[in-house]
């Protein structure tokens, strides 16, 4: 089990991680989601003791990472691409890591085989493509046969076949009882891979929930409404604070209000309604909705970073 407890990390005046707490359980794939620059990589560095938090602490199986007796046998990790020397062969890179953890050298061949690099183990890692580099990183993470895995954007640079392979691998690791924390900015991939999600924005926890719950959270918050008196209904919905999209033919797409609330509103105003259909929200939409307020780098936003108060205000606007 990995526990993040009130982690705070500042770089100068920038707060990269801001009071973040969450848990990674055994046997569960936890998707770690957030827009670019939201603090996912920094959080993972804090979990692995590469960076020291300014406040809070991270615990792996109840201990600080630095106090683990055999780190690679408890947590396998892959942080960012290219955590190897380009001049060293894949085999020797893994052999060095194995030696430090007293892992038998035969395990090196096993993990190279497992990630599909058996044929190029003797090649210098610097000659590898991005995808092969990712595979080497995954091999290093699996080296100690650890019960926990921390993988930062492992799908980066993998071809579609590789992504399916990774998904199957991660699912089977969790199936064996291992806990996996896997970061991604691609929610659609996480929808297929993860059981639970931890969503962060601007270093803060936005949601820690199951994938099913997350899609349920925003499902039904979009309603398709057909009414002969759509002009008046749209006006009433506007006043009530919902976002209304008018389609040709008098169809209204209402966001931010449940079907029940729309029906009640129509009844109050004595407006006839011919159709009222809750729209299923994809996980992607749920995620967009959650992180809208905290997207740091947004085209046209005009400024790089908002301060916390403004971000919170924006969050209220989008989540009435």
């Amino acid at each position, binding site marked *: 089990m990995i526990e993040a407890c009130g982690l705070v990390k500042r770089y100068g005046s920038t707060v990269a991680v801001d009071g973040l707490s969450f848990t990674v359980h055994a046997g569960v794939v936890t998707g770690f989601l957030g827009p670019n620059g939201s603090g996912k990589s920094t959080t993972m*560095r804090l979990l*692995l*003791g*590469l*960076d*020291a938090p300014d406040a809070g602490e991270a615990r792996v199986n109840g201990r600080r*990472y*630095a106090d*683990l*007796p*055999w*780190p*690679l*046998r*408890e*947590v396998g*990790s892959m*942080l*960012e691409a*290219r*955590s*190897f*020397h*380009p*001049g*060293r*062969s894949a085999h*020797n*890179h893994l*052999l*060095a*890591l*194995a*030696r*430090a*953890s*007293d892992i038998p050298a035969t395990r090196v061949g*096993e993990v190279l085989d*497992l990630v599909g690099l058996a044929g190029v183990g003797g090649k210098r890692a610097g000659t590898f493509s991005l995808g092969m580099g990712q595979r080497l990183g995954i091999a*290093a993470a*699996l080296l*100690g*046969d*650890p*019960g926990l895995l921390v993988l930062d954007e492992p799908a980066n640079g993998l071809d579609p076949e590789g992504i399916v392979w990774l998904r*199957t*691998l991660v699912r*089977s*690791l969790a199936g*064996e*009882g291992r806990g996996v924390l896997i970061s991604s900015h691609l929610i659609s991939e996480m929808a297929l891979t993860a059981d639970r999600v931890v969503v962060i924005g601007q270093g803060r926890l936005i949601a820690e929930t199951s994938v099913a719950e997350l899609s349920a959270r925003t499902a039904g918050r979009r309603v398709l409404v057909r009414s002969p008196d759509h002009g008046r209904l749209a006006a009433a919905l506007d006043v009530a604070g919902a976002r209304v999209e008018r389609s040709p033919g008098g169809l209204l797409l209402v966001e931010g209000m449940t079907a029940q609330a729309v029906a009640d509103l129509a009844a109050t105003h004595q407006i006839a309604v011919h159709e009222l259909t809750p729209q299923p929200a994809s996980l992607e939409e749920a995620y967009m909705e959650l992180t809208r307020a905290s997207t740091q780098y947004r085209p046209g936003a005009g400024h790089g970073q908002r301060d916390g108060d403004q971000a919170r205000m924006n969050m209220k606007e989008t989540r009435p």
Partner: protein
Amino acid sequence: MTVTAAAPEIPPGRYRVVHVMRAEWVKLRSVRSVRWVLAAMIVGTLALGITDCLVEASDWAHMTAASRARFDPANISLAGLAFAPLAIGIAGVLVMSGEYGSGLIRSTLAAVPRRRLLLVAKAAVLAAVALALSEVTVFTAFLAGQAVLAGRAPHATLGQPGVLSGAYLALLALFGLGLGAVIRRSAGAIAAYAGLVLVLPYVLLALPGNPARFVPETMLASSVAAVRPQAHYLPPGWEGFALMAVYAAVTLAAGGWLLSRRDA
């Protein structure tokens, strides 16, 4: 797909410095850059020493009495030691800075989060390799040089400097390792090393009180590699060696302190 045992077993005890040293040995011998730099040290030191001996041997017949009085056959055969410090220091720097330049440091610290232990292991392996290679190089240069000089000019016999020069080179490697840990960037650390070891003596020569005698390169040339005392420099023997050991220890301590305090 199989990922071996479902319930991973963790052995008793914990990783110790010997495990980390084995890992560092694999790393040291498996990167081209370090191998090349060390090979360059050996070849360069031998080539310079033998060339100098050839030149001096043919000059001996025409030398003035004063030149003959200053003639130090051991020192001439070790002329390559003017070059060796650069190579061995770069090797030392690369052992640490190469990890930062490539991103390997993340993998390394994930496996060995006790950072001072990591630096100790790196220092131990580097010192052992540097010492072995340096001693072999210095003795070969000495014996080859004396063989060239023999018969044509005075030559020295074993038991004079040698041993100390090789150990001194190992200390320079550790000094480079310490600088690599402090500066972390290869280019910056190599520049700092070259500046301190090779350039600083020339700057200090201009100053009163002759502070240049305390600079690594000068100490190597005058007190460790030479047999005949040279005016204004540390006398041949342990003084220069001991001072170099202090430099290396202080730099490594600073590197270890920064390594454990800074974010990787």
